């Protein structure tokens, strides 16, 4: 029996943690993640879970403790945002390099300076090549569902990689939505009992984590590591199919929204995809062939599938909620452009930066983009490849 509740995104993810009951959770509070960990810490204090909660003095220590606990042989989770993720930077690569299946919600928030507590994607985008799998979530339901699936994906014996679940700070983390909770035992059965690989606490079989590997072997170690990511999409799809059986909710590598016969396309992540879909429906009613692609598995990025889904469009705007200062384009744009570059037939591409530091992405912004794409489709002329939208002159 699913239970329908009205909760915040953070509350939903904390409930997923309660249902999964990791062995160890080491975390440090940071807005807008704080509410999630505060709620989970309450479950620990009230004896609702037997998780070992380690309260540390920084995010660097939080993830370091998670690395130790995961190598010891435990199911491990943490969560962070913004500066906290930035402070974890060094350890992110150690967690992935050691193949430790740590699960970490990242409640997306802008980076300093200037200091800002609201949503954009610059935190998780900065960590996109750290070797963590990234699942992005449009709303609280997706954040809850992705968190449950993340444990299965991370812990798959062919993968054993850490996973971030990204969802928008405040917009999703602190807004109350209608959520369907699965039953506790259904979630527990779905994630199953934790099976450690090479646990350090198995003292009968001593082992060494993190050896020094120099010029004669490092290159081979990294090649072997890069091969693992090729196995991830298949596992993500398998886990999604099983999740559909218990939830009735369907997940794929990305959401294809009215894209199949579209001429005009938009690629956008997370909560702003919801707003954009409403506008797409309005334009479709007026006969404009517009569709949307919302990435879910952003790392590893499914280039081939994304390229095939977009190649027949005439024009395409990639909307980034993060800038790449001094670089060419926003991070999402670069991945989409790379997905399309080897097709002989491909759309004209533009990049728009929106919503930094929690600036609202309004229906009129989506409309502005669609209008511009209509013009480009008609004239073939681009005024600007990359530009900010919703910015005061």
């Amino acid at each position: 029996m699913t239970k329908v509740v009205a909760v915040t995104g953070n509350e939903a993810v904390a409930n997923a943690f309660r249902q999964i009951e990791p062995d160890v959770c080491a975390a440090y509070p940071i807005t807008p993640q704080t509410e999630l960990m505060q709620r989970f810490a309450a479950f620990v204090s009230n004896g609702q879970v037997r998780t070992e909660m380690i309260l540390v003095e920084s995010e660097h220590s939080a993830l370091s403790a998670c690395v130790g606990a995961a190598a010891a042989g435990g199911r491990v989770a943490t969560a962070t945002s913004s500066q906290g993720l930035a402070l974890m930077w060094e350890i992110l690569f150690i967690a992935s390099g050691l193949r430790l299946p740590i699960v970490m919600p990242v409640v997306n928030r802008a980076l300093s300076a200037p200091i800002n507590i609201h949503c954009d994607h610059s935190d998780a985008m900065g960590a996109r090549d750290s070797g963590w799998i990234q699942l992005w979530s449009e709303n609280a339901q997706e954040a809850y569902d992705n968190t449950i699936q993340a444990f299965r994906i991370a812990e798959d014996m062919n993968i054993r990689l850490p996973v971030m679940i990204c969802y928008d700070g405040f917009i999703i983390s602190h807004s109350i939505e209608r959520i369907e909770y699965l039953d506790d035992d259904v979630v527990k059965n779905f994630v199953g009992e934790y099976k450690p690989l090479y646990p350090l606490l198995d003292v009968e079989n001593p082992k060494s984590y993190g050896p020094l590997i120099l010029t004669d072997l490092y290159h081979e170690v990294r090649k072997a590591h890069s091969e693992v990511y090729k196995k991830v999409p298949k596992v993500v799809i398998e886990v999604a199919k099983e999740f559909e059986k218990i939830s009735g909710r369907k997940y794929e590598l990305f959401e294809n929204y009215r894209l199949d016969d579209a001429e005009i396309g938009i690629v956008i992540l997370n909560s702003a995809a919801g707003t954009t879909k409403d506008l797409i429906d309005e334009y479709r009613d007026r006969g404009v062939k517009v569709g949307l692609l919302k990435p879910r598995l952003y790392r590893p990025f499914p280039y081939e599938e994304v390229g095939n889904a977009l190649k027949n469009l005439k024009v395409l705007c990639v909307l980034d909620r993060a800038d790449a200062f001094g670089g060419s384009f926003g991070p999402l744009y670069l991945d989409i452009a790379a997905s399309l570059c080897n097709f002989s037939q491909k759309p004209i591409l533009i990049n728009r930066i929106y919503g930094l530091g929690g600036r609202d992405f309004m229906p009129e912004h989506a409309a502005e983009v669609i209008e511009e794409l209509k013009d480009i489709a008609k004239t073939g002329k681009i005024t600007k490849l990359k530009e900010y939208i919703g910015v005061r002159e």
Partner: protein
Amino acid sequence: MIGWKDIPPGMVILEAGSASKIKTGSWRAAYRPKWIEENCIQCLLCWLFCPDNSVKVKDGKRGEFDYDYCKGCGICALECPGKKGNKAIVMEEEVK
């Protein structure tokens, strides 16, 4: 040397004590410790402080240095109290 297909997940090493196969003493650069037995009071501080397990002890008695793993850091020489102000460990220039 193994190829990439034989790399274990996370490069975790499952063979216990395999570090002994790598003779890190070859990294020693300029100096090596020398034990002067007549100045030794058998306090075993050198054994306690050595970061590389390179002071050998047998039957509770100070033995020779293990130059296969000694990195020549000089910690043992610094800590050694010796006898009446005469050190039982001195650092000598490495002869190649």
